[in-house]
């Protein structure tokens, strides 16, 4: 069995596994099987990433139907990078899961983990496939499962958040479907590589313009790009902690990947960014997102909501890199896609530890907690340094490449915006540190113990990854550059 034969199992393992996990009794067994499935996915993803980093493209035809007719999985460095991120984050966050899920979800956990596996399978399917309609199907698989996961939240507001996410997510996915319908009408094909070949001849067609617009808006909704971000804060705030931890690191990233794949590979950068003003639109929205997201985050008193709004701002950073439409800009976008997953996962894990002990995510209840839960809040502070962008953390590496890309594109004024939003991040992280370490514990507040090791070890593992990849950037920068190169169509051999 070659790696090519194994590649589809990256997605198939969680998809098939979810059926088994759903009927497993108890709590430990479903978790163990889920872990096994996610680990195998992550291992395949790592092997595929290693294979494609050199510029190779893997193509797997389903049912042996040759590509333009059958569905193919087409993987280059860009897919492999995102798929590896999803599979690896699934395995890492699962380490953190059992303790946290045990207090939040009553009864057996089989169905919960089955839904989780469906989300993983959906996200991996979106990244791997080379067929435009297949993207829609997997998008809905992952979205439907995540609506259900969010509704598992203990607070009854989780239901409202899930319902709103369902409405907005479905509208977004349907917009995407309309875009595909237009593309199919003018070209008669759904295969992405085929579309890329046939579209340049039709660049004057209004239906093609409409298709790009529908696809960008549809994915903008899933991505939580500024005016379309309304579903995100509530969904992240009221979902079970484990769900927040996982979705924050992966779901929006995959939507960004789809947008990039269509803008760069299918339509081509000359069309998306030269014929149509996508660059300006994305840059304005990205900057607005960075500011509005950080601004609102500064005044939140609910920690998970604060981090969720910060996610809206961080999505802005990624889209800003994209809007420059250069190799360095795209590298910065991919780099931040990976790094932000590490940062946000660590932050949400630390907040999850706090909620595990105190049962509250309010800033007021955090006062004086630093001395009682030092390990948890130190982890939060260190991950906070990363989101601010202090050197030696991954956050710094992302911002450094964004600065490089801005200067290279002659838009040095963007650097000013980057510095200002970083200062805003400093403020909202500082508020938490101030409350936890420099405020006295209110009278009569219960004595809290440190979070259990089962939660602390995975949290510190992700925090240490934040510093490891902040110092040794060979793997992340190399992979991000190869991914950007693959999208720009030069096989990753760019300078």
């Amino acid at each position: 069995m070659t790696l090519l034969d194994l590649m589809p199992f990256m997605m198939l393992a969680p998809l098939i596994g979810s059926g088994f996990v759903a009927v497993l009794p108890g709590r430990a067994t479903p978790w163990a099987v889920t872990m096994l499935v996610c680990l195998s996915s992550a291992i395949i993803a790592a092997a595929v990433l290693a294979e494609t980093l050199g510029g190779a493209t893997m193509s797997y035809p389903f049912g042996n139907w040759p590509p333009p007719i059958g569905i193919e999985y087409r993987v280059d460095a860009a897919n492999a990078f995102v798929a590896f991120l999803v599979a690896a984050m699934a395995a890492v966050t699962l380490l953190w899961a059992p303790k946290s899920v045990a207090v939040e979800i009553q009864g057996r956990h089989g169905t919960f983990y089955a839904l989780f596996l469906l989300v993983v399978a959906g996200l991996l399917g979106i990244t791997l496939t080379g067929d435009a309609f297949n993207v829609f199907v997997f998008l809905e698989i992952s979205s439907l499962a995540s609506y259900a996961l969010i509704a598992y939240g203990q607070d009854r507001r989780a239901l409202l958040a899930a319902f709103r996410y369902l409405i907005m997510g479905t509208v977004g996915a349907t917009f995407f479907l309309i875009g595909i319908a237009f593309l199919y009408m003018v070209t008669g094909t759904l295969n992405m590589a085929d579309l890329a070949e046939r579209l340049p001849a039709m660049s004057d067609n209004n239906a093609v313009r409409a298709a790009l617009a529908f696809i960008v808006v549809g994915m903008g909704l899933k991505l939580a790009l500024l005016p379309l971000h309304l579903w995100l804060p509530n969904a992240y705030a009221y979902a079970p902690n484990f769900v927040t931890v996982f979705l924050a690191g992966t779901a929006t990233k995959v939507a960004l990947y789809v947008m990039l794949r269509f803008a760069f590979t299918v339509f081509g950068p000359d069309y998306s960014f030269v014929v149509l003003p996508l660059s300006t639109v994305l840059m304005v929205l990205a900057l607005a997102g960075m500011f509005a997201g950080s601004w609102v985050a500064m005044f939140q008193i609910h920690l998970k909501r604060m981090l969720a709004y910060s996610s809206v701002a961080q999505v802005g950073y990624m889209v800003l890199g994209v809007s420059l439409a250069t190799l360095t800009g795209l590298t910065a976008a991919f780099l931040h896609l990976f790094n932000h997953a590490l940062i946000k996962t660590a932050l949400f894990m630390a907040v999850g530890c706090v909620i595990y002990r105190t049962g509250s995510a309010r800033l007021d209840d955090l006062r004086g907690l630093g001395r009682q839960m030092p390990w948890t809040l130190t982890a939060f502070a260190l991950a906070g340094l990363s989101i601010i962008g202090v050197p030696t953390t991954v956050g710094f590496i992302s911002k450094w490449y964004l600065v490089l890309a801005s200067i290279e594109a002659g838009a040095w004024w963007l650097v000013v915006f980057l510095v200002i939003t970083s200062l805003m991040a400093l403020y909202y992280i500082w508020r938490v540190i101030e409350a936890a370490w420099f405020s006295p514990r209110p009278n009569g507040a219960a004595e809290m113990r440190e979070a259990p090791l089962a939660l602390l070890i995975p949290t510190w593992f992700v925090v240490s990854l934040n510093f490891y990849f902040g110092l040794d950037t060979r793997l992340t920068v190399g992979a991000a550059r190869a991914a950007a190169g693959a999208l720009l169509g030069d096989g990753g051999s760019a300078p």
Partner: protein
Amino acid sequence: MTLLGFFNYWVVVTLMMIGFYCVIARGNMIKKVMGLNLFQTSVFILFVSAGKVVGGSTPILRDGVEVYSNPLPHVIVLTAIVVGVAITAVGLALAVRIQEAYGTIEDDHLGDDLDDDEQG
């Protein structure tokens, strides 16, 4: 001719706007889900319209028929319908749970609860 020739597409646009309006303007969650259904159905019609070949017969292989309609859009729509049913099911299930938790499914009565951090 041209106006009527695009009849399908007029239907698509009209249905789409009615559905979208329902989703945005209606406070009742069941009506929101119904609007969502209309919105999706319009896209199905868009796909099916794209598959029609003028003078083509049903895409079944038999003697004496040379021109077929394109069957692929129908297959796509079948898949999309399944997706739509699943979304409706999840949406309605959530509406039932919301009714149990809040005693109402009118968005107007619930909106403040979601943005209120005091209980968080």
